[in-house]
């Protein structure tokens, strides 16, 4: 016999100014199964909750309906409250009379009627609710961080400092990511390498961090607290345990290929470290270009290597499984290939039209020109430099619809560096808007203009060569005049886009991506570092364009989430998940591909089928750790064998029936 208590909330005047809450409470008291109904100013407040708990005791209530705001707002609050009573916390229903009624309707009879209807539905459903119990799953106390850029480094250090084991996985031969490629960082102009390399060294020296470079994620199984990740360690061909990092092999290697790290401005050998301060500071052999590995002829590095047996051309890729409790994706960004997008900018025909990252290498003291700004075509020092912003950004037709966020600031920084390093240089920055929302950012922009950078409002329309040099043509929209600037060097501040392979990796973990390919956060405001998949978090520019301060902040936030998870020995799972009635399941498998969390698997069981006592048949099984209770499978199930606990088909039908009573 259900004894339902209905509690109607005024929500200050949010609800009561539109809905006659007293009338709702009166009507609720008459509904079948309801033995007590009341209203109160703020149900979620301390006295409000106490009032409910008192009523439960006094009237012996065994099911509760609260007519208030959205369950997304306070369902958890009231569930926690019920833990203090004898009532199971799932014998609770929320009638949303705020978002679905008071906020969207004018005051009056009809709004009150709708509130009563909503309460009646909730009352009907709660009578059918069944007590649910959350189960406990164990947690592997080890985290995996994918991506060794500044986001991954920061997250790994934070988790390791909290006392948990971390594996930091990076596919390049060294960690460091984009940040070590930069020369200086805005707005403080501190040397990027000087502040990031100590962190890289910390990572390699930390007792709780296992650093895996030149490695990739091959496969992922499991769920929050219990991931099994297959890691593919690419063959480095250099025994990392005995290599001293002396560098003789790199000097003697006869094969030279274009350096990706220096954005094609210089060459590197086939046996190489990514950059001099690489961590680990030991070379790897690039098997695609090594003469020995390709043709079997050369072997010079093995001959010059002073450590016996250090270089092993027979090394193979190794795959192995490792268990983790939590994962942070920190796969970062790359710059768009502007050449393929913008014919009007020369489509890459002019060597002196470069992107921002190339400029960073050009101006970097440890770069190929040792920090002297020399244009790529003839090595001359440019006197007039044009910087073009929003190349590929804010361009839904040819590029990306979004703003890449960091370009305004690094454009100002580039201008500052040019004016600082080249005496008598002139810098023109073509912009549409200057966006400087960050601590000390506007001040930095001011300083750049004081330094002498000329800001021209207008998007460059065309870059062409007039035979003598490059000409940038655009409109100065503030002068209302077409302008042409002869430039020795043009720097295009290009848009950021998700890194190579980020899509496949996200897919392996079952997380989703937005229309632009960035990894989707669980909630844009309230859960910014979580993905929709439990136990998989994100940090840095893999979520969207970000500058370094924001990346580091987000990495620490993701680390905090992981630490919170790993600090528990076991965790509660939501009991509102799919349940399969084995007697009804036909094993058709329709639910399996539909599940977005890959929680459903088909299993063969033996059971009694009619006269067969030991018949073999296939049924679907739900993994309680993976299931997020979305309900997609219940719709797909042809035999109606799947029900969502807490939202059983029968319960929802009761609600619908109640609406028409």
């Amino acid at each position, binding site marked *: 016999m259900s004894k339902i208590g209905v509690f109607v909330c005024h929500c200050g005047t949010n609800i009561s100014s539109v809905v006659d809450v007293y009338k709702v409470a009166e009507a609720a008291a008459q509904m079948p199964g309801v033995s007590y109904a009341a209203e109160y100013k703020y149900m979620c407040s301390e006295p409000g909750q106490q009032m409910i708990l008192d009523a439960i005791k006094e009237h012996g209530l065994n099911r509760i309906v609260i007519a208030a705001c959205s369950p997304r707002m306070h369902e958890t609050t009231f569930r926690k409250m019920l833990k203090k009573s004898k009532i199971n916390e799932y014998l609770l229903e929320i009638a949303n009379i705020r978002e679905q009624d008071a906020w969207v309707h004018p005051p009056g009879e009809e709004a009150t009627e709708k509130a009563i209807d909503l309460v009646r539905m909730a009352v009907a459903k709660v009578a059918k609710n069944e007590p649910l119990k959350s189960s406990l799953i164990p947690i592997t106390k080890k985290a995996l961080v994918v991506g060794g850029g500044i986001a991954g480094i920061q997250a790994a250090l934070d988790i390791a400092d909290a006392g948990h084991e971390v594996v930091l996985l990076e596919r390049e031969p060294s960690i460091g990511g984009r940040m070590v490629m930069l020369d200086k960082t805005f707005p403080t102009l501190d040397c990027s390498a000087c502040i990031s390399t100590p962190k890289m060294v910390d990572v390699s020296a930390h007792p709780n961090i296992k650093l895996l470079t030149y490695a990739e994620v091959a496969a992922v199984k499991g769920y929050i607290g219990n991931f099994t990740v297959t890691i593919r360690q690419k063959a480095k061909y250099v025994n990392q345990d005995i290599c001293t990092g002396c560098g003789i092999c790199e000097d003697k290697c006869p094969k030279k290929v274009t350096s990706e790290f220096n954005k094609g401005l210089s060459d590197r050998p086939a046996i190489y470290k990514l950059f001099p301060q690489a961590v680990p500071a030991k070379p790897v052999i690039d098997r695609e270009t090594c003469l020995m590995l390709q043709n079997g002829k050369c072997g010079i590095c093995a001959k010059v290597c002073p450590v016996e047996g250090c270089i092993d051309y027979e090394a193979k890729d190794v795959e192995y499984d490792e268990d983790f409790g939590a994962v942070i994706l920190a796969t970062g960004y790359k710059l768009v290939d502007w050449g393929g997008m913008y014919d*009007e900018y020369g489509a890459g025909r002019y060597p002196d039209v470069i992107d921002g990252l190339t400029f960073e290498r050009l101006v970097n003291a440890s770069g190929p020109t040792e920090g002297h700004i020399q244009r790529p075509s003839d090595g001359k020092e440019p006197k007039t430099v044009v910087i073009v912003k*929003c190349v590929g950004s*804010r*361009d*839904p*037709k*040819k*590029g990306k619809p979004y703003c890449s966020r960091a370009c305004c600031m690094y454009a100002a920084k580039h201008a500052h560096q040019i004016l600082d390093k080249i005496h008598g240089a002139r810098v023109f920055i073509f912009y*549409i808007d200057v966006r400087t929302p960050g601590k000390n950012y506007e001040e930095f922009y001011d300083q750049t203009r004081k330094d002498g950078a000329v800001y021209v*409002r*207008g*998007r*460059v*329309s*065309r870059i062409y060569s007039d035979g003598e040099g490059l000409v940038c*043509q*655009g*409109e*100065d*929209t503030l002068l*209302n005049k*077409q*302008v042409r600037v002869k430039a020795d060097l043009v720097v295009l501040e290009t848009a950021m886009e998700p890194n190579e392979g980020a899509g496949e990796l996200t897919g392996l973990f079952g997380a989703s991506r937005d229309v632009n390919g960035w990894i989707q956060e669980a909630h844009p405001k309230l859960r910014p570092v979580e993905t929709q998949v439990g136990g998989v978090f994100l940090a840095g520019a893999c979520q969207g364009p970000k500058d370094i301060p924001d990346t580091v902040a987000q990495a620490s936030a993701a680390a905090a989430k992981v630490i919170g998870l790993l600090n528990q020995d076991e965790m509660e799972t939501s009991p509102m998940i799919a349940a399969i009635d084995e007697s009804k399941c036909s094993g058709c498998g329709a639910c399996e591909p539909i599940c977005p969390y890959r929680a459903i698997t088909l299993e063969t069981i033996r059971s009694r089928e009619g006269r067969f006592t030991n018949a073999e048949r296939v049924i679907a099984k739900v993994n309680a750790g993976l299931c997020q209770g979305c309900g997609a499978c219940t719709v797909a199930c042809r035999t109606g064998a799947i029900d969502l606990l807490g939202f059983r088909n029968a319960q929802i039908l009761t609600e619908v029936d109640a609406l028409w009573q």
Partner: protein
Amino acid sequence: MTDQETLQELMDKADVRQYDCYQCGKCSGGCPMADAMDLKPRGVMRCAQVGSLNRILNSNTIWLCTGCYACVDRCPHDVNVPALIEEARYEAARRGIWRRDSEVLNKVFVANLKMFGRNHEMVLAGLYNVLALKPAQDAQSVPHMMSKKLIGIRPHSIKENGELAKLIERAESWDKLASAPQEVKK
């Protein structure tokens, strides 16, 4: 119909929306005619955004736009400025807003076509300069253009020369600019 409504009608016909333009100026930056225009393509869009139809109709822009579509190609939001300019041209004609030089050029150009079946640049330039009272305009370019054979004395005619003239005359017999252009469009 108010100017505001007329403008909206022109915008709808041209399939151009005010909110698509964020005034980056890439259109004007690359426009080959921008130097001569009093209102550049971005300016046309700005006028459309703030509802000054008269400024568009009285600009020389609508008569100077060559319809090369460089602006549309480069526009990040694919705003079709030439289509709007074309609609504005019809509206200006309907309202009798002609610029003397545009009118002269129009007449000389059509007369030229009737005569030769195709445009003869020397005749066009000569007649235009005289009638527009700018006798020496662009005279300095003549030797260069002649040496490169961009223009010549001898006219080039087409086969069955009279046919095009007949077509043009038939078009001219329509009620001038009242209905014909709208039907022709789209």
